[in-house]
């Protein structure tokens, strides 16, 4: 069989295998190069597979030649293809842009370990996305979680340690909950393959264990996805992580958990459990609404760029969950599209923070004042990305807002409430984004503001600027012609509601 058939396997294997090579590199630049090459390969593979599934097809792969349910099956459909593109893209761009930042924040001899952990996190996330086996999801979830603890803990500030410990405890609880849920399902069905579970669930005599399993799995994944009110670990973790890590993790990590959650709930539970879709939406809609507002409020109050972005993530995740909780095709489409658009915007935001920190060491507002005069391009990029966060027409953020609102319109009276919340939070977004814009352009530079603390190498800076421009451009490009991601999102939504994997 030719290599194309191996696509799903390679998608995971390539970064996985290159991780051990990373630690054997003695020179930190070499390790970085390995990481870049691996992510680049993963990204191109993702693009390739996206091409295959864009017409609604599904790529399947039987690991070890054992057909499911006896072996572990891999599967790439529209949804997972979109996710793989997001993940590998985020990793590649963050690595390219972050060369300088990594040198600034990490000790040289630790970098091989760091980048190897990075690759493991990447491989783990990809593995979760691609596999079609309930337990295999757990294994790769653990790879990605452990690896992300490691790379977050590499943050220079000692608060990073506390944040990571909290993340570790809550993450492990979440994973164990998931494991309990899978165990209960396995107890009642005797299989682990998602399709097979979906098939066998409806002739399970007693549904109560399944309900409980649904509960455990949903809560566990919600914990990992930082769905309000289980988000307490996230802001600090994103805030104190190394900037390069924040740019990567914030763009994709939580979305993967959301992906698993939606996939499990819509493909396994809702077709088989009576009235489960109502439980799902009534459980999540209020949480999402609160999350959207509270996250935006805290973001508007915060005095630190990364902190602001982290809290805005809380509210943006709220949008995704809200879209999903409508349990309609339009709603799901908006949710999935927002996964992509938010990845663009938030990844870009943390890139800005990275660049700012390169020059002013920290991302506190007091340090960043007047950035626009010294580094006009970074400031300009922030304006674009900020607009995308707000959802100004012509940017990617607007597309998903539009979809969400038009999806809410179908809901009638409830829709009005939803729309008003969305509108309100957009106004809050205006507040917190514009706070930063004014800070960049109109506030005076603080005297002796620690400017140019590290000598920045030209090529690194050039690379950073290129990536930043690329991301900002993408935010506009996908705001004007969102064709491909939107098409994928639509197909994914249909597949989810079609109830077939």
């Amino acid at each position, binding site marked *: 069989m030719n290599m194309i058939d191996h696509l799903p396997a390679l998608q995971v294997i390539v970064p996985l295998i290159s991780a051990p090579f990373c630690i054997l590199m003695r020179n930190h630049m070499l390790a970085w190069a390995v990481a870049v090459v691996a992510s680049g390969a993963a990204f191109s593979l993702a693009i390739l597979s996206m091409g295959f599934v864009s017409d609604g097809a599904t790529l399947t792969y039987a690991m070890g030649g054992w057909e499911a349910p006896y072996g572990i099956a891999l599967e790439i459909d529209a949804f997972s293809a979109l996710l793989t593109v997001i993940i590998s893209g985020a990793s590649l761009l963050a690595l390219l842009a972050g060369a300088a930042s990594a040198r600034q924040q990490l000790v040289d001899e630790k970098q091989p370990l760091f980048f190897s952990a990075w690759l493991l996190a990447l491989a783990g996330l990809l593995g979760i996305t691609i596999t079609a086996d309930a*337990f295999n999801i*757990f*294994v790769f979830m*653990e790879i990605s979680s*452990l690896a992300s*603890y*490691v790379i977050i*803990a590499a943050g220079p500030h*000692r*608060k990073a*340690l*506390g944040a*990571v*410990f909290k993340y*570790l*405890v809550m993450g*492990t*609880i979440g994973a*164990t909950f998931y*494991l*309990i849920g899978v*165990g209960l399902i*396995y*107890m009642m069905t005797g299989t*682990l393959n998602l399709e097979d579970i979906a098939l066998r669930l409806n002739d399970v005599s007693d549904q109560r264990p399944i309900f409980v399993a649904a509960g455990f799995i949903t809560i566990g994944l919600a914990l990992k996805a930082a769905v309000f009110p289980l988000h307490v670990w996230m802001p600090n973790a994103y805030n104190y992580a190394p900037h390069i890590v924040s740019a990567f993790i914030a763009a994709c990590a939580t979305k993967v958990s959301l992906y698993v959650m939606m996939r499990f709930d819509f493909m396994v539970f809702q077709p088989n459990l009576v009235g489960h879709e109502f439980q799902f939406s009534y459980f999540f809609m209020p949480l999402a609404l609160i999350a959207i507002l509270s996250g935006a409020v805290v973001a508007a109050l915060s005095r630190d760029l990364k902190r602001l972005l982290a809290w805005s993530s809380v509210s943006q995740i709220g949008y995704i969950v809200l879209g999903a909780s409508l349990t309609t095709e339009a709603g799901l489409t908006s949710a999935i599209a927002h996964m992509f658009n938010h990845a663009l915007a938030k990844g870009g935001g943390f890139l800005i923070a990275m660049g700012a920190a390169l020059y002013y060491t920290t991302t506190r507002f007091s340090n960043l004042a007047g950035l626009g005069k010294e580094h006009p391009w970074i400031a300009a990029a922030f304006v674009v990305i900020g607009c995308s966060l707000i959802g100004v027409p012509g940017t990617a953020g607007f597309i998903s807002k539009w979809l969400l609102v038009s999806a809410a319109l179908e809901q009638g009276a409830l829709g009005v409430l939803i729309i008003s919340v969305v509108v309100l939070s957009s106004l809050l977004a205006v507040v917190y984004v514009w706070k930063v814009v004014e800070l960049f352009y109109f506030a005076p530079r603080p005297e002796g503001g620690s400017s140019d603390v590290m000598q920045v190498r030209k090529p690194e800076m050039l690379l950073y600027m290129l990536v930043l421009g690329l991301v900002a451009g993408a935010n506009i490009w996908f705001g004007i012609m969102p064709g491909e991601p939107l098409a994928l999102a639509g197909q994914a939504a249909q597949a989810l509601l079609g109830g077939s994997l």
Partner: protein
Amino acid sequence: MVWLDLYHYWVFAILLMIGYFSVIAKRNLVKKLIGLSLFQSAVFLLYITMGKVDGGTAPIIGMTDKTDIFSNPLPQVLILTAIVVGISTTALGLSIVVRIKEAYGSIEEDVIHQKDQVE
């Protein structure tokens, strides 16, 4: 008698409670980690229990020539993996605790919190 048939299940539930409680309630980081491992081993018990078959033996062909009823091997495989995951998590957590101790001079969450508030 349903209740006694599920004895193992109750034990699992109780262990889970104990571990879970000490993860949430204890303020001492090492205690939290211990609770975490307790929490996980409870789940191991759940899996292994459901794999047991009456009158079955360990799923190794020809180890005992008495019977060819085997207990379910699949949960055992899963738990082998899960145990490994558990120890890895514990090791990582412990290393973080060590660093926290060095950075803050304490492993009591409240003390750490105060020290963060100070700066």
